[in-house]
């Protein structure tokens, strides 16, 4: 039998770890990425990566990490994924340490850990405030080593367009376009992993990189892959508003002691340092004495929104609050948060060591993504011998990293994504090998026609796009869609607006057809590629919007003020019992995964149970 062929699309943390696992076992891997992998979006991750190493004598443990993760996600995550991930956390951090990641150190020379949201423990390892960059570089270096050894073949500046399926519907390869020449080609594989990251660009402006269009995920969704929990979009509480991007100020700023406040007097226009301590409203600390500024992101974002939009305490009457670090010694800020100090200085023009930062929530992360399968062991871990781990419903097609859906439920805890990407890669590579072992006939034995057909479908699609010369400008259309999605489908959601969006988004599909491609050349024709992204983003927006419309409850990042149930403070009161009854009723109805499947008439939504067999769901509280 010919040697098995593996394709990994995406060279962020998840993709590179998958590649390393495959190559380390001696396999040949083709790696595709729209940017040189060293420039992948994972470089943006600032604050750190979680692992319950318990070096501070706090009694932290993987089990507690598991509990925090599941509770943080409002119980919507599949528990075996979370459990296995949290138990592997310490080993993964050690591995990255061995690869040479310059993690911050304690005086004794051990790995240092800091606090993050949604937990009471110092559990987050970090390399300054550019942890994602440092982790990605370490993996990039390992992959370069495999490349030098001839095991990995990189196709950088190649964009994945779609999968190639055989007559049984199994994935047998991909079609990709060389971005520099617009040449479209098919590539054979026995198993393919998509590690293409999140879809932040559906919202136009977000904390995400410009390459995070979700286009690859959308393409396979339109080709039959199930998309799960699309409506769960994380809004990060603290970002710098901007015209091109909403730049993140990492949660680590609060982990290192940063405090969120507004002046108690509405519209107080004095410079912040002239406002004395008792004239400031530290609203998170006041409402959540136990977790304070480190409540989970969904809660922090909702509170900041509420204080500004509903209560009118935003700075200067606008939509901003202070994130204050000025009480922390400069040396400490430089040692632990340099990367984000630099970003604020360069982009906002003030020194956050002297002046409180002005921030507002922004679209940040997608908990939802391509649906993937798994098998579990009786004690609640993933079955490592199963080829189904991380496999989509298209046999032979895997999804891993932010593009998948199962680790973070309805709300991701800070510093858990880097961990889920690395853990995901560590189990996806081996699952792909298991799958290929049992595969009937290699891709080499497939009739050439399946590749030719797929290739010509995409060539036709691009020829169509290159001929488009209507009145609409695709970039303006995208901008408009983003602003609409930000207005209607972020922190607070109302059914009226969401149902109006359905018509609006269908209208966008029509307007897409009236676009001009703007550029008819073949060399680095970015607008032609963008036309394809835009189509795919509109399809994903429909998934996000429909899921949000139908989910009639509040869970994690998904907040419908009309359906919000206030939790009484006193757990022994009769009101609490009443609340609990209502909560159970709603939870029984809605504790389920949203599944979207593509159809001509828009996304078809169904639901699937969640494995909550290890930790029993309860109403969340952090006060």
């Amino acid at each position: 039998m010919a040697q098995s062929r593996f394709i990994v699309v995406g060279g962020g943390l998840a993709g590179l770890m998958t590649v390393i696992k495959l190559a380390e076992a001696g396999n040949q891997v083709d790696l595709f990425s729209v940017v040189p992998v060293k420039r992948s979006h994972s470089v943006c991750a600032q604050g750190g990566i979680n692992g319950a190493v318990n070096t501070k004598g706090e009694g932290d443990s993987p089990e507690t990490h598991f509990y925090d993760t599941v509770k943080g996600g409002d119980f919507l995550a599949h528990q075996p994924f979370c459990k296995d991930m949290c138990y592997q956390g310490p080993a993964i951090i050690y591995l990255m340490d061995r690869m040479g990641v310059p993690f911050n150190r304690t005086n004794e020379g051990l790995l240092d850990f800091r606090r993050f949201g949604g937990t009471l423990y110092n559990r987050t390892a970090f390399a300054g405030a550019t942890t994602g960059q440092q982790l990605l570089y370490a993996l990039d270096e390992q992959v370069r080593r495999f490349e030098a050894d001839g095991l990995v073949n990189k196709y950088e500046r190649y964009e994945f367009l779609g999968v190639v399926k055989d007559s049984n519907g199994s994935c047998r390869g991909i079609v990709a376009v060389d971005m520099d020449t617009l040449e479209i080609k098919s590539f054979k594989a026995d198993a393919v992993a998509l590690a293409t990251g999140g879809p932040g660009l559906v919202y136009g402006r977000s904390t995400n990189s410009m390459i995070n269009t979700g286009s690859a995920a959308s393409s396979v969704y339109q080709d039959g892959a199930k998309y799960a929990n699309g409506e769960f979009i994380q809004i990060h509480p603290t970002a710098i508003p901007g015209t091109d991007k909403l730049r993140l100020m990492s949660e680590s700023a609060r982990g290192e002691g940063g405090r969120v406040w507004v002046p108690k007097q509405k519209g107080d226009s004095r410079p912040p340092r002239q406002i004395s301590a008792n004239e400031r409203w530290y609203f998170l600390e006041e409402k959540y004495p136990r977790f304070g500024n480190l409540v989970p992101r969904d809660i922090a974002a909702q509170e900041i929104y509420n204080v500004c939009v509903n209560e009118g305490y935003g700075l200067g009457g606008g939509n901003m609050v202070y994130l204050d670090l000025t009480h922390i010694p400069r040396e400490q800020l430089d040692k632990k948060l340099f990367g984000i100090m630099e970003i604020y200085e360069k982009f906002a023009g003030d020194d956050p060591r002297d002046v409180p930062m002005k921030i507002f929530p922004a679209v940040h992360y997608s908990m939802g993504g391509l649906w993937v399968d798994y098998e579990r062991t009786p004690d609640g871990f993933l079955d490592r011998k199963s080829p189904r781990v991380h496999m989509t419903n298209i046999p032979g097609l895997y999804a891993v990293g932010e593009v998948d859906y199962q680790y973070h439920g309805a709300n991701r805890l800070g510093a858990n994504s880097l961990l889920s990407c690395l853990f995901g890669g560590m189990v996806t590579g081996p699952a792909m090998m298991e799958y290929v072992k049992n595969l009937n006939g290699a891709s080499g034995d497939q009739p050439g026609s399946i590749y030719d057909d797929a290739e010509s479908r995409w060539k036709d699609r691009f020829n169509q796009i290159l001929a488009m010369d209507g009145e609409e400008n695709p970039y303006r259309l995208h901008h408009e869609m983003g602003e609409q999605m930000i207005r209607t489908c972020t922190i607070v959601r109302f059914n009226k607006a969401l149902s109006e969006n359905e018509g609006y988004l269908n209208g966008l599909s029509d307007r897409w057809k009236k676009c001009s491609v703007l550029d008819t050349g073949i060399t680095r024709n970015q607008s032609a590629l963008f036309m394809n992204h835009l189509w795919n983003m509109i399809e994903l927006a429909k998934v996000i919007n429909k899921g949000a419309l139908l989910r009639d409850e509040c869970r994690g990042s998904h907040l419908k003020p009309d359906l919000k149930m206030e939790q009484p403070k006193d757990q022994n009161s009769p009101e609490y019992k009443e609340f609990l009854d209502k909560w159970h009723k709603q939870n029984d109805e809605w504790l389920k995964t949203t599944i979207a499947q593509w159809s001509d008439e828009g996304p078809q939504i169904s639901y699937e149970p969640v494995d909550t067999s290890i930790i029993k769901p309860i109403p969340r509280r952090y006060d």
Partner: protein
Amino acid sequence: MSSTIEVHIKRQKEAGKQPYWEKFRVPYQASMNVITILQEIQRNPVTTSGEKVAPVAWDCSCLEEVCGACTMVINGHVRQSCSALVDKLEQPIVLEPMRKFPVVRDLVVNRQRMFESLKKIQAWTAIDGTYDLGPAEKQAPQHQHELYLFARCMTCGCCVDACPQYTREGDFVGPAALGQAYLFNNNKSARFQAEERLNALMGEGGIQDCGNAQNCVRVCPKDIPLTRAIAKLNGATMAQFFKNLLFK
């Protein structure tokens, strides 16, 4: 501040074609950067003389100066366009592609040679495997700090663009790769391959190509002390040279 911004952009249809200049005028917005300008041109790709043209091609990704993608020459200085704030730039703003790499189109260049240099100097730790072997050795916080300075190199290429010794035709690995060689030679386990790295740097295109012009440090957006690394590597390659002679 006027309500529009004028930009002059050096364009090129494809590799090998003659470059040409085009002028655009875009609406001013508070806190805009060079990326915002290029995005405005995408939304309305019309030159100052009213001609409809193809939008300008350029690379970008993170928009927070951490991926290195968006590097170009702005008003004569090589730097990242995402962190180039319009309020701090003289107008008209002049944009050109980087000068030491082949142009793909407009402001897009191919920096593959920098990644190849990283291969030459074995810029990695030769770990035994990804299985669980516990943590690495303990490390002094000061040592971590020193390594972190160099580890922030985003292979953006500003330093090679500014380096007089790095030419399109030559084979000099360039300052960024030298900085990385220094980084790995000081890493607790990657230093076990230090000799191989030094030997690679003795050959063609290695460290002797550096003329110590110091341009590289001046343009590095991450303030990486490249010349310090180069000085130390110089000493180390010298020592390695004599060691090689003795043990031949």
